[in-house]
């Protein structure tokens, strides 16, 4: 269906006219080409007759502008399809592939335009949740910066080309020429990993036809280190599956199990399920990492170590566990190598942590899970696999399944190979399918300079980006919302994707492009369905018939296709190489470690032009629109650096100038983190555009890739930081921690006592309602008793809520602070993006924010507390009382309503709001959408929610449009709204299932139960505002052995 130019019956351009097989009137065919073939050539000999001819032809052709290509429709709408009601949204299942792993999704479609992306509630990998990146993709689909046409670059001249014919012909000719050599000289570089069976099938066909062609795959988000580590340990390329529901102890080594892991949604849910103390014994999470991950902020115990120390730490831990637990590794692994000792392992803090952790692992053997992050070398993954096996975790908390396409070369090797063949001048035809290797490959490879050595290069991508700029052709890619696709989830299950709209800008998917290379002109549906039928032949019963296909498309996935765990056979591997500097407790200032992890928001930079992602506050730094060099506060002090100082970075001969410093409490001393994904020069009007012809936009953040030399690990030693003397302004949504003593003191006392109440599991078991006792214990009749806050009374009769009484609850114990709800809210409620300068002014518009506090006296190892805060819908709302025009009023269901068209914008309500959750439209933040080129972005708006004008206040509505929809539905059926029928956007996507919403009058509702939970408390209850959002105290489960150490 995106093959719009397949058989034109009318022509739209002269290229098409000449090359197409259309048959226009013969007179025109003879007349036109000679007259105005390629523009101004014929102009100098211009006489009157010729002028008249051209004018006549122009007039005749004016009508051609209204011609359209032939469209194919999935469902013809000559008659209204059954069940389709205009104005009522429809939901379709599809998926999105990130780093070669599919996320099952459901997309809400209004009148043929997708407006919201949610997780597929039927699929066990999602259960309704979607990652923040998948949710923000709706904005990407409507991005006006997406390239509309093919672009040809010849001799430095950029030409936009209307149709695919010329490109197809050129490639076909090149492939034909290469065919006798078996395709030698042809390189297909897949810049994004894919688990698509269709692509794999086409790739196999391609390899068959062109056996000597090189097909490489390298995705910065791929998890090749893990695959390779498992291959080292078991001789097979395997994916590690964690079943955290059964895990009593989780050890995350530089690993973000809860956000960036491909199965993070399921893992978050499983992890959070065991953080609710009422539901049984809790799990305990240890994290060892240099820079914070979401997992690290949730850890019961976190040890900041340099990334290079993770390997030695794990090796030492393994030795300790094996020895203390009298365990024996499986015979296949042979005698275990001697573990590293000394250095940092002997520092009291690390030694203590190691001892306690080892003892805990032994106690919980069989119920523990050890995870290593993708940035660590394969050997570390191998050790983790061995330790997991030795502890008996395999089969209970850890499973191994075959990795799709496991035989391919590693991502890092593939990149090096590409650089090598380009260098050797062996590449005649280079096709890059997706990705942006020129930006994301390590700078040391110098890929940018080498691409031009290919005689012909074409880059398929959504944007005319850094890589496209260096290729001869840029090919517009169809967004996944516009195309047929298939892929596999992390557990190996097959998911199917269907187009939710016609491609806005034309374009092909990698599948379609590959099919065209093979001369296959069939459309996406045929291709995917062909694969599906083939898979059914491979043992999936019943998919031959139409019903199975229809069901799979309807569900978005094929039930029962999950990969079966492999019984992995141990195989000996070499001991971990531990360089001396990795063991050193501290490193010299000029020889620091640079860590370049994937960003949690824009990933490897593919989300850089997505304004929602750019403006989303980072989960720990609360930075927007930039990355920054994160270093430990003590190291910043030592280097004389403070927040927003600009520095120059040098590492092994490569350098990066003017990078902003952000001293981050809890960062490992001796290393510095600069996340990938920023500093893009050809991203677009949002992420940065310096090289294009249009408006110049400063890049957001700094490009760490120029400093990197290896693609297989994300850290490297030898970094020197030089202070420049100037500064670079950063935009944080929360004041950074470097504040005066007055403020710091208040945070320490306030957060623990009032805002975020925390206790240990032991404390909870002894006293489940400890959160209510916030006042100092009092002496009554000679006994010291805990004091709850005295009940507050109103002077007047309060409202009674007879009908519904909406309320929400947030379980802080389950909440991981992953930010998914913030994007869900933004997408659902048409929340505008304001830009870096406005964020610096404190005018960000997010209705829901995640507050983050550092607690404790040790700046280098603090505790992190997070808390989502939106309007809590106070029953006695302070905002309502002060509005002079009654623009914010209470509904009889207890909602604190905001009447936009009554608001005149005095902002008094915001002043009087103790939570400062109200957001004001200081400008017309939707003004950009008025430009004709940007109007397409209006399509992303939710038609159920007003787009607010300038000068009015706005805030969380408890998704009142969803409440109304449920009430109308229930009203039509003449019944009450059932519990669980109203699901707010934040609740819907929460992977940790921490949010409950419903009717507090309904005694059986989940939210009522949460409000009655002994852990429940109200924020700032002493103001007697009676918030409708209750928080459930966070329960941590510290190891008593380490208890005294943690603050």
């Amino acid at each position, binding site marked *: 269906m995106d093959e719009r130019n397949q058989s034109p019956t009318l022509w739209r351009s002269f290229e098409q006219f000449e090359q197409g097989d259309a048959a226009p009137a013969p007179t025109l065919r003879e007349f036109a080409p000679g007259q105005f073939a390629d523009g101004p050539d014929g102009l100098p000999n211009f006489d009157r007759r010729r002028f008249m001819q051209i004018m006549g032809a122009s007039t005749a052709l004016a009508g051609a502008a209204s011609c359209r290509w032939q469209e194919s429709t999935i469902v013809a709408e000559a008659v209204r399809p059954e069940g389709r009601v205009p104005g009522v949204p429809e939901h379709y299942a599809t998926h999105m592939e990130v780093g070669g792993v599919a996320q099952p999704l459901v997309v809400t479609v209004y009148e043929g335009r997708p407006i919201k992306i949610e997780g597929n509630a039927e699929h066990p990998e999602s259960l309704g949740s979607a990652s923040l990146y998948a949710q923000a993709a709706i904005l990407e689909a409507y991005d006006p910066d997406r390239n509309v046409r093919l672009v040809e670059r010849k001799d430095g001249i950029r030409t936009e080309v209307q149709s695919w014919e010329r490109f197809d012909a050129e490639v076909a000719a090149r492939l034909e020429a290469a065919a006798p050599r078996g395709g030698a000289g042809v390189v297909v570089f897949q810049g994004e990993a894919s688990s698509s069976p269709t692509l794999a099938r086409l790739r196999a066909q391609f390899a068959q036809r062109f056996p000597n062609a090189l097909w490489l795959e390298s995705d910065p988000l791929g998890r090749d280190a893990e695959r390779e580590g498992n291959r080292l340990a078991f001789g097979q390329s395997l994916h590690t599956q964690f079943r955290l529901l059964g895990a009593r102890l989780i050890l995350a080594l530089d690993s973000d199990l809860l956000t960036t892991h491909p199965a993070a949604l399921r893992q978050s849910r499983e992890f959070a399920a065991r953080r609710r103390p009422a539901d049984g014994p809790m799990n305990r999470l240890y994290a060892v990492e240099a820079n914070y991950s979401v997992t690290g902020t949730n850890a019961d115990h976190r040890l900041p170590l340099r990334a290079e120390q993770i390997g030695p730490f794990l090796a030492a831990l393994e030795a300790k566990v094996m020895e203390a637990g009298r365990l024996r590794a499986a015979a296949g692994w042979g005698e275990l190598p001697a573990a590293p000792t000394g250095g940092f392992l002997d520092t009291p803090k690390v030694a203590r942590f190691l001892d306690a952790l080892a003892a805990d692992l032994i106690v919980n053997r069989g119920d523990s899970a050890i995870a290593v992050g993708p940035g660590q070398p394969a050997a570390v993954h191998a050790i983790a696999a061995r330790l997991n096996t030795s502890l008996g975790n395999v089969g209970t908390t850890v499973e191994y399944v075959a990795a799709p396409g496991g035989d391919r070369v590693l991502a890092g090797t593939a990149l090096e190979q590409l650089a090598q063949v380009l260098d050797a001048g062996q590449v005649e035809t280079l096709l890059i399918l997706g990705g942006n290797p020129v930006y994301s490959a390590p700078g040391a490879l110098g890929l940018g300079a080498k691409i031009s050595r290919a005689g012909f290069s074409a880059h398929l991508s959504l944007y005319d980006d850094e890589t496209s700029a260096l290729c001869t052709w840029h090919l517009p890619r169809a967004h996944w919302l516009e195309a047929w696709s298939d892929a596999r989830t992390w557990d190996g299950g097959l998911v199917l994707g269907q187009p939710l709209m016609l491609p806005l800008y034309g374009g092909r998917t990698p599948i379609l492009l590959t099919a065209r290379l093979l001369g296959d002109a069939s459309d996406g549906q045929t291709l995917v369905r062909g694969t599906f039928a083939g898979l059914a032949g491979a043992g999936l019963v019943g998919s031959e018939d139409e019903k199975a296909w229809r069901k799979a498309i309807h569900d978005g996935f094929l039930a029962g296709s999950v990969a079966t765990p492999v019984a992995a056979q141990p195989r000996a591997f070499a001991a971990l190489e531990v360089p001396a500097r990795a063991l050193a407790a501290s490193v010299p200032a000029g020889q620091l470690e640079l860590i370049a992890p994937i960003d949690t928001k824009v990933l490897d930079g593919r989300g850089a032009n997505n304004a929602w992602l750019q403006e989303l506050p980072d989960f720990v730094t609360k930075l927007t629109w930039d990355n920054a060099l994160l270093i430990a506060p003590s190291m910043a002090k030592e280097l004389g650096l403070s927040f927003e100082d600009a520095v120059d970075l040098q590492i092994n001969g490569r350098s990066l100038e003017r990078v902003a410093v952000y001293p981050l409490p809890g960062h490992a001393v001796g290393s510095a983190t600069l996340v990938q994904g920023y500093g893009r020069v050809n991203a677009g009007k949002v992420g940065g555009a310096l090289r294009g012809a249009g408006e110049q936009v400063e890049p957001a953040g700094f490009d760490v890739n120029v400093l990197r030399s290896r693609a297989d690990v994300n850290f490297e030693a030898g970094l020197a930081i030089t202070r420049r003397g100037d500064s670079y302004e950063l935009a944080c949504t*929360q*004041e950074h921690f470097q*504040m*005066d*003593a*007055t*403020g710091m003191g*208040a*945070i320490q*006392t*306030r*957060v623990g006592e009032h*805002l975020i109440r925390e206790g240990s599991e032991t404390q909870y078991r002894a006293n489940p309602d400890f959160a209510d006792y916030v006042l100092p214990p009092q002496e009554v009749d000679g006994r010291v008793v805990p004091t709850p806050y005295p009940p507050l009374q109103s002077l007047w009769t309060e409202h009674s809520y007879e009908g519904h009484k909406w309320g929400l609850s947030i379980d802080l114990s389950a909440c991981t602070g992953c930010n998914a709800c913030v994007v869900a809210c933004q997408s659902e409620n048409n929340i505008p993006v304001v830009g870096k300068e*406005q964020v610096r*002014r*404190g*005018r960000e518009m997010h209705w829901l*924010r995640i*507050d*983050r*506090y550092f607690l404790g006296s040790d700046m280098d190892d603090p505790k992190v507390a997070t*808390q989502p*805060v939106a309007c809590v819908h106070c029953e006695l709302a*302070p905002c309502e*009382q*002060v*509005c*002079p*025009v*009654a623009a914010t009023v209470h509904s009889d269901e207890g909602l604190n309503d905001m009447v936009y068209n*009554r*608001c*005149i*914008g*005095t*902002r*008094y309500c*915001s*002043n*009087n709001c*103790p*939570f*400062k959750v*109200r*957001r*004001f*439209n*200081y*400008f*017309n933040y939707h003004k950009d959408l008025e430009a004709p080129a940007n109007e397409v972005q209006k399509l992303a708006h939710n038609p159920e929610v007003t787009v607010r*004008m*300038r*000068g*009015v*206040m706005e805030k969380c509505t408890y998704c009142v449009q969803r409440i109304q929809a449920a009430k109308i539905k229930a009203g039509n059926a003449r019944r009450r709204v059932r519990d669980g029928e109203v699901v707010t956007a934040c609740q819907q996507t929460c992977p940790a299932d921490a949010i409950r919403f419903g009717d507090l009058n309904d005694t059986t509702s989940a939210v009522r139960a949460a409000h009655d939970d002994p852990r429940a408390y109200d924020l*700032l209850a002493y*103001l007697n505002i009676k918030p409708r959002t209750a928080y459930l105290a966070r329960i941590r489960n510290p190891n008593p052995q380490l208890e005294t150490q943690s603050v």
Partner: protein
Amino acid sequence: MVTITQRVATLDNTSDDPRQRQPLILGNNDYTSITEKVCGVVEDPKVKKAWLIAFLIAVSLTGMLFALVGYLIVTGVGVWGNQIPVAWGWPIVNFVFWVGIGHAGTLISAILYLFRQNWRTSINRFAEAMTIFAVVCAGLFPGIHVGRAWLAYWLFPIPNQMLMWPQFRSPLLWDVFAVGTYASVSTVFWYMGMIPDLATIRDRAKHPLRRMLYGVLAMGWRGSARHWHRYERAYLLLAGLATPLVLSVHTIVSFDFAVSQLPGWHTTIFPPYFVAGAIFSGFAMVVTLAIPARAFFGMKDIITIRHLENMNKIILATGMMVGYAYAMEFFVAWYSGNEFEQFAFINRATGPYAWAYWIMVSCNVISPQIFWFKKARTSIPIMLVIAIFVNIGMWFERFVITISTLNRDFLPSSWGYFRPTLVDLGMLVGSFGLFFTLFLLFLRFLPMIAMAEVKSILPRPNGHGEAH
């Protein structure tokens, strides 16, 4: 016995010798000379260069103010530095500042009148004018401060097709009524007091146009005994009406803050504290304006050092009330045991806006202490400097109350630092431009001194006076 003529040479009437009541008007002035002097300014056919320069500067600043207002309305209130959490910024600071300035005028003309403080007669006219112009400046800000200025009329209880009343529980609405009443009553009071003087100018006018204009303004005043009788009655009544307004306006303005629940705003001391502060700043402004005006227009013998000294005494007294309020706020915060309340005040004095707090304390509490010394009270340069300090200090007081309270409230996550923009600064400067434009026009075209009232405190003519 010392005679008046003996003292004239020194122009000093500041002696506090209890045996001798000091004259309030010096320099051999009689009814005629007062009329000549005051009317002379209005009737002078030549435009004085200094006045013209001052006027041109003021008018251009006013132009800038209105250009900025236009820009603001077209673009959005984001052109200011306001943000979340500091949703009220300089515009509200300026509003409270200007409303406060206004207070001295009404106090002088109404309360001091009721207390029979005769020295008020020399300064009441232009203090009242100052009040009205200050209220004009103040009134500008709330109107343009709202996000949708074109709907600001919704603040008024106007019957409408939406069947919507304003929300009467909101202090902002009380503000609309309080400031509105105040502006109208003080304007009527000022204008009514001016009628006999306008009639004098009318009678002296030579040009028919002037005669007609001042004639219309004088509303047919003929100076008959009946006129005077009615006039005095009405004046007394209006003074009685205006007196509670002096107290109510700033009380209600303080409710904008006190009725909300923010720590640092939610205090019962605000109404008296705001009123004292308003009188304090108002008198400082009268002094600031009187010193150049009396020198420039040759009125040193009518607005004497004694007048200025009296005002300085009031500045000293109200300055100490304000200082007491500052101290009491801290005490109450400590005594309340509420840690949010305590933090709000500690944060004022030691947090990110400590500089503003200490500017406020030095200007408002410390600097007026010099007025304990008579030498300082009667020295023109010193009192001018102190009066300007007090003006600055009182602006900062409103800044501290508004901004350093809002910038850090309950949840540390929403704390933020407010930075003003150039538009903020331009509007503050522009509001002074507007104020001085109006004031300079007043000085030139209306009698700046209440001739009729001043004459009432002169010794009676015909030489009988000394017999009393």
